[in-house]
């Protein structure tokens, strides 16, 4: 295993541990970005170019931004006055260690498999595109529908409920909210006249 892999793996694990144990939620989000970047590096090291770059664009460029935006909008970005850890956090860590132990031992016994030492021929992006349009055409359409539904759903959920109030500029979810006057919601107060 190359030293680059160990460096990236160490970075990833450190980032993950920091993301779950730091006190300030924004620091957690930023450590998560480090984790994502480490994972992208590992994907690139394995020869999955498109996937590594897609990981950067989607996770770092979209999911992390969503995360920090919601942190800002819900004002959790401050000092963290509340009790951040559950009373039973030690039990959670124990469960985590147990799971790691069980799965780790299962993984070690996989060592019997014959690893493919020679690198598989790198999958060119052209092939990914071709395969997406032929073999995986149906999953592609389904993903399109899922993403559209998720986008509409997120926008509807995040819209403020009162009528006539403009939705937050700069949006709860970055990409997902359509700015404009507030939408109608099913829980309209009963005293209002329908105009």
């Amino acid at each position, binding site marked *: 295993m190359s030293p680059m892999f160990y460096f990236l793996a160490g970075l990833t694990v450190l980032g993950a541990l920091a993301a779950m144990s730091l006190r300030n939620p924004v620091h957690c989000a930023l450590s998560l*970005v480090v984790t994502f970047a480490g994972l992208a590096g590992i994907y690139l090291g394995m020869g999955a*170019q498109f996937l590594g770059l897609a990981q950067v*664009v989607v996770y770092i460029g979209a999911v992390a931004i969503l995360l920090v935006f919601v942190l800002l909008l819900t004002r959790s970005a401050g000092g963290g006055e509340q009790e951040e850890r559950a009373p039973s956090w030690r039990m959670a860590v124990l469960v985590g260690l147990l799971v790691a132990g069980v799965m780790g031992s299962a993984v070690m016994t996989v060592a019997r498999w014959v690893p493919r030492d020679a690198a598989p021929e790198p999958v060119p992006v052209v092939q990914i595109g071709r395969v997406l349009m032929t073999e995986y055409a149906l999953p592609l359409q389904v993903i399109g529908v899922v993403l559209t539904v998720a986008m509409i759903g997120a926008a509807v959920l995040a819209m403020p409920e009162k009528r006539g109030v403009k939705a937050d*500029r700069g949006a709860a979810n970055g*990409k997902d909210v*359509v700015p404009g006057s507030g939408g109608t919601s099913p829980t309209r107060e009963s005293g209002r006249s329908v105009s």
Partner: protein
Amino acid sequence: MAPSIDQLFVNLLHWVVGFLPELARPWASLVISLGSILSVFALLFGLTTVCERKAIARMQNRLGPNRVGPFGFFQFIADGIKSLTKEDVVPRTADRVVHFLAPLALLVPVVLTYLVLPIGRNMVVLDLDCGLLFFFAAGASTELAVFMAGWASRSKYSLLGAMRAIAQMVSYELPFILSTMGVVMMAGTLSTVGIVEAQAAVGGEWLARWNVFTPWGLVAFVLFVIASFAEANRSPFDLPEGESEIVAGYFIEYSGFKFALFFMAEYLGMFSSSAMAVTLFLGGWTAPVSFLSWVPSWMWFFGKLFTLMALFIWVRGTTPRLRMDQLMDFAWKFMLPMALVILPVVVVWHRLGGGWAGWLVCAPPLAVAWVLLGRALVGRRQIGPRTYRYADG
């Protein structure tokens, strides 16, 4: 003679790298080429700041800086020395680690985007299979640095500026990426070198097949340039950093060298997206007409880049700033649908094989969509005779 000037830098690189042992050659080649590209663009950054100040000054009927050096062109050296020697002020309640890392987090991805730009024939640092995706990945990483800068300063203005800047960058990233999909479809590859080579004149044609000479390419070029204005937080999209609005927005608490780093990162990002626009739409390093192909390829590239930079400076000096809601409306209600309309048009163009039939069939839907979307965008305001609320008679 002409090919040797064209390949001058490539031959120079091979000669220098030839002195090194075999094992170090790829790394040395990478480092030297990236270093030289960065130094060229850093020098260009300095000169552009001066040129911009002088150009905008002339547009505003005054002279720009003209004291330091010949006609004031060493002003950027003076500015650099000033920013290096200024005191580095960090607010007491600021988050020191994140505050320190933000300029770095902005600069590194911007520098990474230069890895896939083809400056001339055989002059690209890394010929990746998905070069364009790498460019967009690096561009997407810059948004997080903006947030880090704004949040770490723990100041209301900087936080507000950061939120606006991120909202703007995220909104304009979609048209930015979608407008290039037409180019990718026509070239059949995500590699920047492949895209440039697909735009070279084929056979005995006198006019090169630049993407901007096609109807969809023209529209996509306009969309891409507008989106790169927004990605670089440049006027008219500079509300997040406007001085009269929000007192420099997310880098309000930065002084001295860190501010200079932010400034440099913004300008380098601007160069990088202009260079990508040149690569995708203006044919990269190819000559527009075949009888001019004796001019070295890197000269063509830089010439086109300078033209685009002049456009950036011109627009900055000319247009007023857009308000935040106007900005967002423009991105979501005009540019995104327009970028989506381009995609079927490209398919039709490809089927028809381009040429006069292509123009006849593809140009009208684009023009109609442009006009209709534009009308729909301004439609909500009643455009009629002006009424005055308080003035009488």
